[in-house]
């Protein structure tokens, strides 16, 4: 067990500031991943019948990228695990620091309505994001959940994809998955909650790592809100948009005036 002590010290640290710094670093690295993930997703919008998106997916699953993607997946798992573990640990420490609460408690801050409550619900929003992420991985990474509401031929197609996990997901498959009612609802809520988490999280990470300057910090707080909106709304668009886009297999749209035959 002693052989792994260094690993535990590396993850857990030996001080409250050290633990917060680890939460900040892992959080910022995951923000970097979110940017690249969103950039990749934006290819779904490209009007080339999914060619760009499908090529991008193929490239990520190609032989030369296999090791890189596998490494990135392990890295993300470690980042997320450390972030969540230390968040739980520090929340427990912080709760223990005030065993008896106040009968009455009011803030003296004049924060905006958006920013003020975000820092009070970081663990809650983090847990919601975690639950959303589990479903997201089940759907898109492991493709372990069928979409039974879809027509039989679609289910067959998704099941076929299950059979070979190395097959990249196509734009059509992605849109079909996003149309699933559970997926749509959970993704919409999950992405918006993620954005709310970032309203405080992004700015807070810089402060924790020691960056605070009267010239730049007010701009950083504004940037944090802008970043949170871009990420939160950016990802939340996809489960909504999926219901309005036409993909192969959809029933052809009724021609204009088709209902006019009804007297």
């Amino acid at each position, binding site marked *: 067990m002693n052989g792994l002590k260094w690993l535990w010290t590396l993850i857990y640290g030996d001080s409250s500031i050290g633990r*917060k710094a680890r939460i900040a670093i892992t959080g910022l690295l995951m923000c970097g991943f979110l940017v690249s993930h969103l950039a990749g997703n934006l290819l779904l919008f490209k009007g080339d019948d999914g060619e760009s998106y499908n090529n991008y997916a193929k490239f990520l699953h190609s032989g030369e990228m296999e090791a890189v993607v596998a490494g990135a997946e392990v890295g993300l798992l470690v980042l997320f695990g450390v972030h969540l573990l230390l968040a739980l640990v520090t929340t427990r420490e*912080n709760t223990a620091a005030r065993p008896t609460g106040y009968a009455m408690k009011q*803030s*003296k801050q004049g924060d905006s309505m958006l920013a003020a409550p975000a820092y*009070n619900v970081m663990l809650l929003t983090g847990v919601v994001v975690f639950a959303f992420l589990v479903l997201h991985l089940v759907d898109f990474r492991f493709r372990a959940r069928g979409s039974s509401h879809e027509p039989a031929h679609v289910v067959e197609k998704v099941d076929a994809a299950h059979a070979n996990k190395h097959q990249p997901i196509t734009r059509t498959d992605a849109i079909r998955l996003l149309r699933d009612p559970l997926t749509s609802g959970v993704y919409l809520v999950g992405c918006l909650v993620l954005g709310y988490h970032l309203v405080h999280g992004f700015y807070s990470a810089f*402060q*924790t790592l*020691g*960056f605070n300057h009267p010239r730049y910090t007010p701009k950083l707080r504004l940037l944090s809100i802008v970043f949170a909106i871009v990420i939160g709304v950016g990802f939340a668009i996809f489960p909504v948009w999926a219901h309005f886009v036409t993909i192969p297999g959809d029933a052809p749209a009724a021609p204009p005036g088709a209902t006019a035959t009804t007297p």
Partner: protein
Amino acid sequence: MSAATSSPTALKTPGSDSHSGPTLSLTLKIWRQKDTNSPGELKTYEVKGISTHMSFLEMLDVLNEQLVQKNEEPVAFDHDCREGICGMCGVMINGQAHGPDLTTTTCQLHMRKFRDHDTIVIEPWRAKAFPVIKDLVVDRSAFDRIITTGGYVSINVGSAPDGNAVPVPKENADQAFDAATCIGCGACVASCKNASASLFVSAKVSQLALLPQGEPERVRRVQRMVAQMDKEGFGGCTNTNECEAACPVGIKVENIARLNREFLRAKMITR
């Protein structure tokens, strides 16, 4: 830090002609606790004829005078200078450290901030590291222990040097002075949702880290003070900035960033 009980003997009788202007009738809900190990509870008291010119502590003095006259135990609360500079006073007033005013200690809060027939809830600072001694008095010696681990310059710096012999940039001198104005009242801990002492420790670390005299012990100081802060059972900082809003002397969270910076730097360069 001594636990002082208010002395009402020097006060005028409430409602006497010493205070002109409007007076207030108030309902006070005050935390009463016999000692650290006894359970406490909020008790309700009525006070009348409170001049709007009184300070909050003078209002408590009036209440205590009434309690003494009724052979009841007066409310224990900390106070000393009553000029806003010593850091002894400090209670939660309607859920806000030192009451509703910004950059104001409890002793400098005036009753004109309240309205007639208001109900005021008064509680002690709440933190595991600040156990209640009695009523509104808490034991803040955890702060003293943090200071003893490094909040000083222990090297011999000799007698006062010539003003120009040790160059200190004006910005550094200003920031060090601002940090040094921390009076150690504990409002930062009381107001923080995590009962974190980060603002206090950051002020004490900053005032020395910014000056040449603090440089030789810079690396050791921050590590020892943070270790003691954790040992005392204070929570961690989650950057809610409530401490800055509650601080009666306006210590800024910029100091917490400096504390984090100093700590991480020290951890990296320690051999």
